[in-house]
């Protein structure tokens, strides 16, 4: 058989070569084109096609009415908070389930990333929540994004349970987040320890004096009352007691039944007003039997024993019972003045959703700043004081998806998400972002008052490991005053216990 490469074969050969050359060109061109445009999130044409964007395997997915190159890996993150639908912190649970998760998932899908966000709700009291969290973190497990009360940050950090944000997620992405500029440094302080930021705060609050305008008018006191000293408070209370004997004049939290509510709404403000913070971070000392402490205890003594303008029983009850009693009395116009946080306005006496609805809340409640002991006698020379708390969210250092967790965290604190939180539940609160506050606080007189008058004068509790225990000692001390013990005895006992607790060298006395 003779196979001769005649002209027809030559032609075939040429066309073969030509075809393959063209094919190669087209192919390389196509590949070049694909290599240039296959990015995670880029548009694709055929649903189901597989490819690679750099090292990432992607597939073409239909998202809405677009077709997008999507990372084939599914990123799963779990977020946990002490919130549950239909129960505790219902608004937060609703926000996470109905806004954050769907929006974050969609936003990522449109950018070519598949995320599954799982929400772990809980409805237990805060100390129990803290214990569960500590157990999980100690065992190096737990949710990826977790909510944390600001003043647990110190002890969790010391135990090695949490790390600064820029050590968990990529430092560059944390630094580059634009949200930081909207969160005031003082509010960032809620989640800061030893100069490092451990999480993003969720908002904050403030304390001030609530008073019933109608009762004040009846007693001949001004409707725009603003005391400038502790003596002013006592004198107003005495006037009320004399003119309106059926009404409780004043409530200032005392005793350890109310826990931190006694600290935040009570003695911390008076210590600051007397010129000293409970803990001096520079000298690393706690206040012992000092003039500030004695003055603060004397103020309690004046209220409950000397002038008898307070209700001792409320402050000796266990747990929430006494605080509830004071809320109820105020909501019914049976209590003229009380020091509380904005939580009472938003969640307790709220005429629509409150636990003790106050029908005339919006017209009849006056707000006054908490004065220092006398003008300019407060810390930093302040004449008015307040205390703020707050918590935030952070990332679990044991997370398998740290970067995605950070992205979720940043998303939760974006302007849109924070605004959504305010609208989803209906109850406005002071958020961590200046831009959101500028919009949402306009209509609410109380929160506006707090943001403008209390927050600028506010202090935060010390992020020190022993604070919790010291606070309890002072709570008990105020309780003992209400029970009738003398200031000198109580102050001395307090200092003894304090020295046992933190060591004598860390106590200041004078």
């Amino acid at each position, binding site marked *: 058989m003779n196979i001769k490469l005649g002209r027809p074969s030559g032609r075939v050969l040429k066309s073969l070569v030509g075809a393959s050359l063209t094919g190669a060109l087209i192919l390389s061109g196509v590949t070049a084109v694909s290599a240039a445009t296959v990015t995670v999130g880029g548009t694709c044409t055929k649903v189901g096609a597989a490819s690679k964007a750099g090292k990432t395997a992607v597939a073409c997915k239909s998202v809405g009415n677009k077709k997008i190159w999507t990372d084939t890996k599914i990123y799963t993150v779990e977020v946990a908070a002490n919130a549950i639908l239909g*129960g505790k912190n219902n608004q937060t649970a609703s926000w996470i389930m109905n806004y954050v998760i769907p929006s974050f998932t969609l936003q990522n899908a449109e950018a070519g990333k598949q995320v599954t966000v799982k929400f772990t*709700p809980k409805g237990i009291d805060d100390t129990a929540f803290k214990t569960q969290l500590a157990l999980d973190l100690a065992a190096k497990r737990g949710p990826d994004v977790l909510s944390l009360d600001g003043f647990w940050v110190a002890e969790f950090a010391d135990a090695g349970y949490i790390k600064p944000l820029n050590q968990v997620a990529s430092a560059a992405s944390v630094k580059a987040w634009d949200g930081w500029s909207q969160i005031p440094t003082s509010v960032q302080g809620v989640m800061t320890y030893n100069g490092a930021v451990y999480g993003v705060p969720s908002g904050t609050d403030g304390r001030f004096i609530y008073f019933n305008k109608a009762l004040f008018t009846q007693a001949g006191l001004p409707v725009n009352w603003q005391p400038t000293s502790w003596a002013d408070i006592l004198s107003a209370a005495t006037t009320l007691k004399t003119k309106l004997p059926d009404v409780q004049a004043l409530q200032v939290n005392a005793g350890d039944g109310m826990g931190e509510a006694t600290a935040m709404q009570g003695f911390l403000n008076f210590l600051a007003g007397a010129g000293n913070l409970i803990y001096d971070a520079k000298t690393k000392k706690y206040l012992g039997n000092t003039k500030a402490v004695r003055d603060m205890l004397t103020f309690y003594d004046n209220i409950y024993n000397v002038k008898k303008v307070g209700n001792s029983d409320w402050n000796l009850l266990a747990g929430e019972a006494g605080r509830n009693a004071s809320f109820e009395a105020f909501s019914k116009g049976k209590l003229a003045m009380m020091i509380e946080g904005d939580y009472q306005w938003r969640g307790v006496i709220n005429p629509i959703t409150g636990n003790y609805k106050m029908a005339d809340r919006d017209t009849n409640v006056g707000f006054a700043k908490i004065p220092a002991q006398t003008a300019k006698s407060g810390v930093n020379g302040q004449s008015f004081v307040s205390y703020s708390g707050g918590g935030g969210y952070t990332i679990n250092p044991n997370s398998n998806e740290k970067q995605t967790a950070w992205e979720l965290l940043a998303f939760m604190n974006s302007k849109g998400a924070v605004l959504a939180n305010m609208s989803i539940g209906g109850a406005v609160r002071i958020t961590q972002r200046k831009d959101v506050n500028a919009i949402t606080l306009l209509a609410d007189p109380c929160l506006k008052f707090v943001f403008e008058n209390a927050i600028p004068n506010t202090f935060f509790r010390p992020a020190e490991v022993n604070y919790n225990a010291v606070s309890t000692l002072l709570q008990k001390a105020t309780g003992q005053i209400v029970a009738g013990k003398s200031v000198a005895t109580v102050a001395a006992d307090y200092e003894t216990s304090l020295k046992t607790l933190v060591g004598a060298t860390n106590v200041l006395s004078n």
Partner: protein
Amino acid sequence: MARKNKILEKSLSERVTTTIFIALVVSFFMLPLLWLILAPFDGAPSYRLKIPHFGLQNFEEMKLNPYAYRSLMNSAFFSAGTGLMVILVGAPASYVLSRVKFKGRDSFLYLLLLFSSIVTGSAAMVPLFLLALRLNILDTYHGVILVLTGGLIPAAIFILKDFTDSIPKSYEESAQIFGASSFRILKDIVTPVIRPGLAVIFVWSFVQAWGNFLVPFILIRDINKQPGAVMMYSFYNEGGQAVIRLVAAFSFLYTIPVVLMYFYVNRKYGFRFYGGIKG
């Protein structure tokens, strides 16, 4: 004649004192319970005991918490599981300990009882958590059942042993003469006789597990597995105040099952902590 009158007189004064005593006791035990019957059905309940504004809206509102009703089922599961486990593990052991007398038996049992008091307290929280972690039973139904059972076994054996003690060995001895195996004896002779004791221990374990907050709190994270004891605390709002409507409704639903269980066991076996065979 006079003697008969004396006997009758005695009966009368006796009966009067007895009646008064019983009336006092019944009021004492019943008064605090009344709130549980009235408040859940009250439209606006408070701590006050009052005639309710009848309505079932509190139960309706409870539905808004998607986990509330489910938690009651979880409680049932945990409690029944624990009750069963306690009987299965405890009954054979108490039989042996009843029949086999070795030196220090009672002290040994009492030591176990003391240990159980540690393990059911708050101090054991961390060891229990880490133990469950190592055994890989965290966040599981069986993990909770196993841990609860461990804490209840000593007391269960203590009580069941006394129960079994009061049953004469004659039945077992005669069965043995006929060659029945120990296993057979336990199954066919002893068990039917101590069934009332088993039922009581089942109910007792059930009730202990039903009300136990600590163990599920330490071990469970998945909200869908949480029992009623833990879920009850979710009916508090942000500031820690109880939402009385929900707490009342939930309390009612949370109480009914254990009461019904007692009724059933009492009717069927009589609820006694001790064998009732008279010699």
